[in-house]
């Protein structure tokens, strides 16, 4: 069995001092695959995303998260990033006065040895390729990080960063929310461009709509802090048609004593 995968084992987590939100999540995303994680509001999807990235406001009470067989649980968020994990935020913050270009160069260099900084030309070529992939104007790289960005632009920026930083594993937290169809296509195009045998992704979404553009290898359904069902891409369609209550009912009946 290949070790190249993002793995979540029996993960329990809560807001520091609060009630448990993740109640034993098990999930594996092998390198080279894109998985969708679906679920209703409050099911714990975004919490899972933030916990994986190392958000300090959450406390992990049990379980483990592994990248290619190595536990990242004790790592700071930046160490996790340098191990190849990337989170596309649902609500990316603004960082005034910091241009996208400067920020990404710092972020790239943070992954490299001190005496091996990326060349300026090499960097700009890489950045411009990513900008083009997202049908964006070159001038975007001189704008300050998300300052005055529309919701759609922020989402696009998250994918731009993904393309430049080339993580091994990406978690996309409701990247589709608030996007119109055109923006959705562009963002999906970016994610699809990143696909390859050395890239795994967990795409979190409410809606099946996104999965028309980013076709997943597997679909997981989350409810009340657990993965309650895993299936093929058709599961998303089915879910879209029948709703979450259908699946909950199905689980309940299958879990009922025979």
């Amino acid at each position, binding site marked *: 069995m290949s070790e190249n995968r993002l793995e979540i084992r029996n993960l329990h987590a809560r807001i520091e001092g609060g009630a448990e939100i993740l109640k034993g999540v098990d999930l594996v995303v092998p390198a080279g695959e894109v998985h969708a994680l679906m679920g209703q509001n409050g099911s714990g999807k975004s919490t899972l995303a933030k916990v994986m990235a190392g958000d300090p406001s959450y406390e992990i009470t049990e379980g483990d998260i592994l990248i290619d067989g190595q536990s990242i649980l004790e790592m700071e968020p930046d160490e996790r990033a340098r191990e190849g994990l990337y*989170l596309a935020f649902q609500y990316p913050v603004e960082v005034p006065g910091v241009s996208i270009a400067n*920020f990404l160069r*710092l972020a790239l260099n943070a992954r490299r040895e001190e005496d091996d900084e990326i060349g300026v030309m090499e960097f700009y070529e890489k950045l411009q390729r990513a900008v083009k992939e997202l049908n964006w104007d070159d001038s975007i790289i001189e704008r300050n990080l998300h300052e005055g960005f529309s919701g759609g632009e922020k989402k696009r920026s998250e994918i731009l960063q993904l393309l430049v930083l080339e993580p091994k594993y990406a978690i996309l937290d409701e990247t589709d929310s608030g996007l119109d169809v055109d923006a959705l296509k562009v963002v999906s195009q970016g994610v699809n461009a990143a696909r390859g045998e050395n890239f795994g992704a967990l795409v979190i979404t409410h809606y099946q709509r996104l999965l028309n553009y980013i076709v997943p290898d597997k679909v997981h359904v989350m409810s009340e802090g657990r993965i309650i069902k895993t299936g093929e891409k058709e599961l998303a369609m089915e879910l879209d048609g029948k709703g979450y209550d259908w699946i909950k009912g199905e689980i309940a009946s299958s879990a009922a004593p025979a």
Partner: protein
Amino acid sequence: MKEDLVADAPMQHPDADKLVGMEHEKQYDFQLPENYFYRSEKGLDARVIEKISYFKGEPQWMLDFRLKALEIAEKKGPPKWGPDLSGLNFEDIYFYIRPQEKQGTSKSWDDIPEEVRETYRRLGIPEAEQKVLAGVGAQYESEMVYHNLKEEWEKQGVIFLDTDTGLKEHPEIFKEYFATVVPPEDNYYAAVNSAVWSGGSFVYVPAGVDVDVPLQAYFLLNAQQIGQFERTLIIVEPGAKAHYIEGCTAPTYDSDSFHSGVIEIIAKENSNVRYSTIQNWSHNVYNLVTQRAMVYDNASMGWLDGNLGSKVTMKYPSCYLVGNGAHGEVLSIAFAGDGQHQDAGAKVIHAAPNTTSSVVSKSISKGSGTSSYRGLVQIHEGATNAKSNVECDALLLDETSKTNTYPYIEINEKTAHVGHEATVSKLNEEQIFYLQSRGLAEDEAMALIVRGFLEPVAKELPLEYAVELNRLIELEMEGSVG
């Protein structure tokens, strides 16, 4: 009298400073050796002032001016407002010190003493410096030891000298403008500076001359307990343009130190003047500076003021907009770390019609540091259609640091447009997490947020200074990660 004046003066030995303050009779020679050392006794009185003036070989009018200023200072006494200055004790301060190096103007980098160059190197200055060496003036302890003016400027009639040499070589221009913008009566520290001033820059730009390369003066302060009282006088004639840059960085000492400069600028009709400074005094320095510009018809004056380091800073660069259509700008940055109080701001006086001004102040406080914005916008009656906009933003890096805002606005003219906006923000956990999630370590993330916060001001700096500012901010941020 003369015997007294030089009793402790002509010492040639490098360890001469160790002898200062000891009682001993000394044979002296009126032919002062080229390489000599002099330091005043501690404290401030008329005798010290007479010695300073004597050693500088000044004209009588300057000595009289100094003595008068001392009287004014004694009458005024220190200000009763602002930060705590109780740690500042004049009895413990040398008001004048002269370096052992040959006095006068050095013509090349090679003439700069090795230990001075070493200090520059340690501060990481040289890369930026060497490129612009030809135009650099540097103050070492209390005197200029290095000064080189670009040839083309000389041809254009631009004067760029240390202030003492300026007084000697251009007495007419000097006397006409000196102390006209900041008279000793202005405030206590201006009076003290007027009494004991030494060094600083003297700049004269003739009408219509565009000085396209910034005039730069680095000065250092690196002996214990030296008062630095630089006095800079910049005169820019009608239609001329100049950018003066002063940076200063000081290593650490054991005891409190005092810096009180006076900067006077005359920006005549249609001129364009910028004065940029980044100061990084060691954390025991009291930095009390008066910076003021007189701005005439349609002239534009810009202050860029960066205050890092020091124990207490009180500094309010000001623009007196006295001519129709004059424009004044103050951009300021303050970083108050542990135990520091940065009381900085701006003062803009609109005394003529159609004058405009803009103030942007950015302060950062950390640990037990306090930063205050103290600003005055005054619009005189008859200064019709004046416009002023003030924006001050404070960033707190933790729970313990403090910030204050004291904006004073006095409007005596109905047609005035005055805007004031102030924000206080705390270093945002979400921003830090976001940046960390992209691979930046926590301290790098914090430094980046701070740099971004300062960016609207930092972008106005020439690149090498912006780089140095970033380096200083990173140093200040060290140990911020809790």
